[in-house]
């Protein structure tokens, strides 16, 4: 178990440091409110009373990790136990809404991205006219258009899943196009010559050489793409919040200063991102290992 000592211990140390900073930050940020309360009540706070208060306020500036954890449990596990896993107040419900928009957009974006990349690799005119725009569009803050897309689509009768998925699709589309174009071009001159000596058709070269060679590039872009899809879905939920979703939870929380609710939605989103990227990573590991391409 050398791995435990050489990798896990440093990671745990850094994570522990983050928690210490978090608790210390909670004391610092919440102390003003604690002192105000004490002043009004005409009592003076000892240090331990101050700490206890800052870690247990109802609407703290920065809730402690245990408060967020309790809120997450209350809105997920506890509701499952009561058989209300999909009630409107449950984070599972909101998470599911965000996840379905993310997945729909991700699948569509990846599909279109791969198709466009195949076109770009096989057609010089397409390569030279589309590729500069694809690269340039990566420097443009696309996410900023997200609310507009949602509002406009709503006004022409598309609501719910579709507008958010379109944003997710758009965000996962570009990394896949760029990565796949690189990947489909990754076979070297010798491998392409070899296909030529066998008089292989373009289609045979694509299926037997280009696509398998592009797998490492594809998975790298998929990881970026799925994270971007999730961000897109969350931002897409900001302007219209009656449909629910993690983004809507954040916005509603910020309207009513429900900081614990914002943090719990945020951490749920983070966990969701981690799980999604982790799944892509696992599939990547298994596939590349089977293909003998793992490093």
């Amino acid at each position, binding site marked *: 178990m050398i791995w435990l000592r050489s990798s896990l211990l440093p990671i745990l140390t850094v994570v522990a440091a983050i928690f210490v900073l978090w608790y210390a930050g909670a004391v610092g940020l919440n102390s003003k409110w604690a002192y105000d309360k004490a002043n009004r009540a005409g009592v003076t706070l000892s240090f331990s009373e101050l700490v206890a208060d800052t870690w247990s306020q109802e609407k703290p500036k920065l809730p402690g990790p245990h408060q967020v954890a309790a809120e997450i449990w209350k809105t997920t596990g506890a509701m499952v136990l009561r058989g209300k896993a999909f009630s409107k107040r449950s984070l599972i419900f909101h998470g599911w809404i965000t996840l379905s928009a993310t997945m729909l957009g991700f699948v569509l974006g990846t599909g279109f991205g791969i198709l466009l990349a195949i076109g770009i690799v096989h057609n010089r005119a397409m390569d030279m006219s589309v590729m500069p725009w694809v690269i340039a569009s990566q420097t443009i803050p696309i996410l900023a258009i997200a609310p507009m897309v949602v509002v406009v689509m709503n006004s022409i009768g598309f609501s719910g899943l579709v507008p958010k998925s379109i944003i997710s699709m758009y965000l996962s589309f570009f990394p896949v196009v760029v990565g796949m174009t690189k990947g489909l071009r990754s076979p070297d001159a*010798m491998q392409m*010559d070899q296909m030529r*000596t066998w*008089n*292989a058709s373009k289609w*045979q070269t694509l299926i037997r*050489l280009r696509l398998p060679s592009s797998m490492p590039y594809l998975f790298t872009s998929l990881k970026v793409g799925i994270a971007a899809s999730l961000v897109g879905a969350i931002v897409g939920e900001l302007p219209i919040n009656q449909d629910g979703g993690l983004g809507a939870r954040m916005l509603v929380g910020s309207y009513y200063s429900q900081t614990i609710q914002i943090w719990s939605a945020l951490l749920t989103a983070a966990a969701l991102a981690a799980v999604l990227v982790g799944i892509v990573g696992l599939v990547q590991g298994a596939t590349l290992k089977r293909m*003998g391409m793992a490093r």
Partner: protein
Amino acid sequence: MAEPVIKAENLSLTFETNDGPVHALKDISLAINKGEFVSFIGPSGCGKTTFLRVMADLEKPTAGTITVNGVSPEAARMARAYGYVFQAAGLYPWRTIGGNIRLPLEIMGYDKADQAERVKRVLELVDLAGFEKKFPWQLSGGMQQRASIARALAFDADILLMDEPFGALDEIVRDHLNEQLLKLWAKTNKTIAFVTHSIPEAVYLSTKIVVMSPRPGRITDVIDSPLPRERPLDIRDTPEFLEIAHRVRDGLRAGHAYDD
């Protein structure tokens, strides 16, 4: 005498580059007969690989004519007239050794039973029987190169074009593979064009040695080897062998005198 398998007449190839034209091949004329083992030797830039690539229709000549099996290189490529072995084995890591050898067969549309039979046969030919299910990265460099030769043999082309196939291997493995290649040549009676930059390798393997020199790429000497077809490794210590090696070295030196 029968028509030569490969016949080049006044063949030239000029690359246009930013620094002006580069004469990769100039006025090459050569005939290779059926069953010959021809080596091309020369310093880098002499056009030996380019010439091989012209035979394989991977480069187009800018002047002169060349025929392979009596037709243009392009028609020969379409008819899958030759197998090409590159400097690196170039095996796909995601396919087994058997799968790699099957690859050209799949592309050429052989049926499943035929594929299996051919894979088995060529693996035996290169002494790799039993390695069919292994992946390339589980084999040594020499074995990988043998697998890539098996792949070039699998579809029964009677010409084998080899571009420094053993260049990346160490001396000891190379000796062993040279010996095996000669046995294979004797068994299959293929016509082989072989690019190398090793004098002993060229002399040991060939029935005909073509010495080339650079700027412009051209043939300076063609040596018909008097050595018998049956060649044990220690033939390399005989006076006949040393005499041919000497003549090759002289040819290479003469080519170099132009530059300095």
